[in-house]
Each structure stands twice: as structure tokens, then as C-alpha cells.
């Protein structure tokens, strides 16, 4: 159990500031995901927490205790590496017990912990194998086992699933969530894959160029993105982001998109858009569906569009439609076939429209 706090944390290589000034606190037992594109400083931050990277400025606190100059092995952490970092010359059993032996732990206790971890992760039959005789998923589990046996108060994961195929990745996501329920530890999990972050995290921290763009629960980030970057990063397929100009006409507010397509903007309490303002409009594909076309709901706005591309996935179909020259990604729920070149009515759920200022890229509506 540990509460982690980063206070004005800074990392610079010479003149280059990878992480200029980070403030973040994580609670006991919380599952935090750091996400962002590569080079955003998420791994560097994690490695500073682990003690693998020297801290250039600011403070790192575990339960109020300053950790900046504490050896990694004395921080009560465990880390799962991207390429697993299993010692290739040691059997699985020795991989698991290596750290405990270094800490001169009692042999019986080591045995107990290794057994426990092996049962928890289904490694019983693999204990006497060498890492090279394991499959990718098994290696991943051993890497987790090596972390588990330490009974650490903080788990650090550095893109642990990026080397697995899609199916195994989904499976391991579940395993990691289960693990989190069994062990009472804070988890800091770094990934570039927003799906991983959305499915596992209690709280997500979105980073860009070493700066926190937004943090919050997965639902908050999905529904209330603070800026264009977060809006585009969270959600799959990505939100449609198109630029346009606000047109206020008495009671009615519209946004005219660059290609001429016009969408009405419903009135919200206390917020207003100015006539002529350049904006970026955000619409999730999930909120443009043929199923809701012609609905009585006042927030549903129905428009005809031409199907350009149709990508069926089975239970739902993603398709790109052309509305007066503007192409938008939409989502059709159900098994109904969407034929390319067909003209079909689509229901826009205007209550979920996001509006960002074009220059500052911050959300204004």
C-alpha cells in the first residue's frame, strides 16, 4: 500500500526537457494508466518512479517519504518490463525467486511465495522450464509472477502487452485486472494503447510532450475531453474532428463545416458560442447511427449521407459517409448490411457534440 506523489517532477537530458514539471498523486490501491503517443514522457515518468532514471528536479514521495535517492530495490516496488526481461539463463522458478534470494529471505518463505504466485498465475507446470521454452503469453505471466512474489506496495507496468498478439492481449488485460483485485497494491501502468487504458484503469493520465493533458476516469475522458488532443486520442475508432465556423442566428446556433455541411448545436446552460468563431467540432462515430435516424428525440438530427466505405465487423459496421462533401466516420449497430454508394439517413446525437476552439484547441462547449 502506498500513496505516490510526484511534486514538480522534472527530467532533462542536457538541454532537452522530457518531463518539464509533473504534478500527480496516486492513491492507495489505485490503478493508474499513463497513456500518450511515443515520446510523450510516460515511460520516463514510470522509470523515475522505479528509480531506473535519475530525477533531475522536484520530488518523488511514497507515503510522504522522499524517494529520489533511494535504490530501486529499496522502494518496495516491482516492475513488469515491455520485453519481460526474464533472465534467460535461469529457470522460471529461479526467475521468480531471484529477487527474494538477493534480499536474503528465508528459504521456506521464498518457496511459499513462489508457490502462491505460480498458482495465482497458472505457472505450476512451468517452474522448471527456461524462458526460451515458453510462449509469449507464458513469459508475460512469469514476468508478472516475478513482480507478484515481492509483495510490493507498487506495481509498475511498462507497456507489458505490446509484444502479444491481439487475442492474447485481450486475455492478459483480464488477467492483470484480476491480479489487481487479489493484491492490494497501487498499479502504475504505461501504455500507448488507449483501449488498454480504458478497459483497465481506475484513472487515466493522458500525456503529451511530458505535460499532462487531462486526467480522470475512463468515462470522464470519453465524455468530457478537455481538448482536441484528448478527444482524438481516447476512443476507437477515433472521434471525428472537423473544423468549421460558428453561425449564430437569433436563437439558433449552427456550425458550418469547411466543406459546407451545416449542423445545429443544441443550447446548453450558461455557455454560448460567438458568431464567426473558428472551431473544431468533435463527433464520435457512436453518435452518428442509422438506427436512430428519424427519432422523435429533439437531440437527434437526421441527415442523408452517401456511403463511401463500409467496414463490417460482424455485430456492427463502421462506415465512412459523405454529407454534402464532408466525410464522417459513423457506426451502424446490428447485422444489417450497409451497401457502398447507397444513400441512407443517419441520426446525429447532438447532445454529445463537442466544440473546441480552433486556436487554443481547448474545449469550449
Amino acid at each position, binding site marked *: 500500500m502506498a500513496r505516490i506523489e510526484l511534486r514538480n517532477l522534472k527530467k532533462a537530458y542536457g538541454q532537452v526537457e522530457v518531463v518539464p514539471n509533473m504534478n500527480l498523486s496516486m492513491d492507495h490501491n489505485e490503478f493508474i494508466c499513463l497513456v500518450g503517443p511515443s515520446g510523450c514522457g510516460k515511460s520516463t515518468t514510470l522509470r523515475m518512479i*522505479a*528509480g*531506473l532514471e535519475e530525477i533531475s528536479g522536484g520530488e518523488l514521495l511514497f507515503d510522504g517519504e522522499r524517494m529520489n535517492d533511494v535504490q*530501486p*530495490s529499496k522502494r518496495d516496488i516491482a*516492475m513488469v*518490463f515491455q520485453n519481460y526481461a526474464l533472465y534467460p539463463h535461469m529457470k522460471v522458478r529461479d526467475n521468480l525467486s531471484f529477487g527474494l534470494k*538477493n534480499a536474503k529471505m528465508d528459504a521456506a518463505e521464498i518457496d511459499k511465495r513462489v508457490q502462491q504466485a505460480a498458482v495465482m498465475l497458472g505457472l505450476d507446470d512451468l517452474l522448471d522450464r527456461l524462458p526460451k521454452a515458453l510462449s509469449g503469453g507464458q513469459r508475460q505471466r512469469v514476468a508478472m509472477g516475478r513482480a507478484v512474489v515481492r509483495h510490493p506496495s507498487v506495481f509498475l507496468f511498462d507497456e507489458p502487452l505490446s509484444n502479444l498478439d491481439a487475442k492474447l492481449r485481450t486475455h492478459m488485460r483480464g488477467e492483470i485486472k484480476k491480479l489487481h483485485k487479489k493484491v492490494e497494491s497501487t498499479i502504475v501502468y504505461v501504455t500507448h494503447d488507449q483501449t488498454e487504458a480504458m478497459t483497465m484503469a481506475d484513472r487515466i493520465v493522458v500525456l503529451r510532450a511530458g505535460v499532462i493533458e487531462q486526467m480522470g476516469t475512463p468515462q470522464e475522458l470519453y465524455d468530457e475531453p478537455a481538448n482536441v488532443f484528448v478527444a482524438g486520442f481516447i476512443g476507437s475508432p477515433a472521434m471525428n474532428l472537423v473544423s468549421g465556423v460558428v453561425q449564430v442566428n437569433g436563437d439558433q446556433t449552427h456550425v458550418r463545416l469547411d466543406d459546407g455541411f451545416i449542423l445545429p448545436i443544441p443550447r446548453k446552460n450558461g455557455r454560448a458560442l460567438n458568431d464567426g468563431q473558428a472551431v473544431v467540432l468533435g463527433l464520435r462515430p457512436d453518435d452518428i447511427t442509422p438506427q436512430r435516424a428519424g427519432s422523435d428525440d429533439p437531440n437527434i438530427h437526421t441527415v442523408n449521407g452517401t456511403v463511401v466505405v463500409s467496414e463490417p465487423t460482424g455485430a456492427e459496421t463502421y462506415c465512412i459517409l459523405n454529407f454534402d462533401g464532408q466525410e464522417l466516420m459513423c457506426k451502424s449497430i446490428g447485422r444489417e448490411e450497409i451497401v457502398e454508394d447507397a444513400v441512407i439517413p443517419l441520426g446525429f446525437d447532438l447532445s454529445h457534440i463537442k466544440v473546441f476552439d480552433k486556436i487554443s484547441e481547448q474545449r469550449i462547449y
Partner: protein
Amino acid sequence: MLTIKAQKRLGGFIRHSWLMLSVFAILFPFLWIALSGFKREIDIAMSRISFAPVWSNYEELLFSKSSTYLTNFLNSVIVSFSATVLCVGIATLAAHSLRRHKWPIFAVSAILIFSMIFNMTPAMTLVGAWHSLFVKVGINNTLFALILVNVVLLLPMALWLMMTFMRDVPEELEEAAAIDGCTPAEIFRKIVLPLVVPGMMATSVIVFVFSWNEFQAALTLTTKATQTVPVAIAKFAQEYEVKHGAMAAAATLSTIPAVMLMLVATRYIVSGLTNGAIK
């Protein structure tokens, strides 16, 4: 037009013929000198292909009172073996240090460029300085001095090779070991060392062979008591009356380590020779 199959066969035939010709060009001189070791001086002078093999050259070389060949051989073994152990040990430590211990980039490149220049300089340029240094320290004409020179001569190559093998040890492993509570020395001993053993073997084979073959320093820094095999062979050829038979026998014996390594450690030798140059 030839069929594809016939074309392939013809290509294979031409390639194998060309390669077999080269094999012959390489092996024939060897066989010739090996045979010459069993010839009497008169057989050599008549360049006879069929002859009655004799052991006299080997007997003289190995058992005659005037021959120092066994001592020379022992000297060579001592020098090459000690130099290899020292050189590979030092190079392994240094390669790991230069790769992983965050030395300033200019320092690392300075060391590497210096060792490259040093590696390409003829040993002959420095024997004068070594000689006067060893005289001053009082170890001139000793095997110890020759070992030291062999170590420094082969360090650049060993360092270069170990740097390439070190690169194949994932940094993540060392980080994992640090989190698992290893000190830097323990990381080296428990994680890095076991993983670079194949690399150290390849480097050792190469260093041993080059040390065994070393001639320029051995020629100028030894006396009769400390001279190595190559120096002894050179002396056979330089005597007023060249003893071709004895020279052939001595030369043949001296290739034993090389031939043994060739048969046993081809893989290591190839990886050592190619890694040193192109990686």
C-alpha cells in the same frame, strides 16, 4: 535454351568447381609443408613426391639436446594463454562499463577511436619504447613482459568484439536485476557474465590465435630462453644453411592449435572475425 533445372545444375557445378579449386589452393601448401617435415633434406632438395617418410626432423626438433623447440612451445603456450585470460577479462569488464555505466559520450568515443588507431599501428613502431620501458622496470626479456605486450596489442580487438556482444544483452535485464536488489557488481556477475559467455568464447579463440601468431614483439623483446615458436621458426629459416626439414616440422607442429580450433570452434571463429569488422 537450357531448362531451369539444367541451368541450376550447371550453376552449382561451376560454383563447386571454383570453390574446390580454392580449397585445393589453400590446402596444397599445407600438405606440402606437412609432408616436407617427414622428408630427408635430400628428398626436399630433389622435390620428390614419393619418398620414404622419416621421423628424424621431429626427433631432432623435440629430443635433441641442441633444440629449444619444446621450451619455445611452452613459452608460446604460457604467453598466449595468460594473455588471452587477462585480455578477455579486462575487455569484458571495460565493454560492459563503456556500454552501460553512462560515461560521457566523448570519453567513450575517445577510448574506442584510440583503440582503433592503436590496433592498426604496426607493433614494430612501439617495440623500441616497450624495450626501454621494460629495461627501466627491470622486466626486459621476460615472458611476463611479453604477456603484457600481447595483452595491450590484442585489447582493442577484444574490446571491440565484447562491445558488440554486450550490445546483445538487453538493458531491461540489468534494470530488472537492479529492482531485484543486485548491486552493480552482482548484476555483472550474475546476469551479464552468464549471458556473454558465448561472446567471450569467440573473443578468447580469436585473441588466443592472434597471440599465438604474434611475431614482431616476440622477435624484438625476447632472448633465446624466452623466445616463442614463431621466433624459433624464423631462426630456422635464417641460419646460414637453411634446415628446410626442421623448419617444416616446426611449422607443422606450430599449426596444431590453429587446426584444432578450426575443427572445433569454426562457429566462434567466424563470429569473432566478422563481428570485429562489420558490426
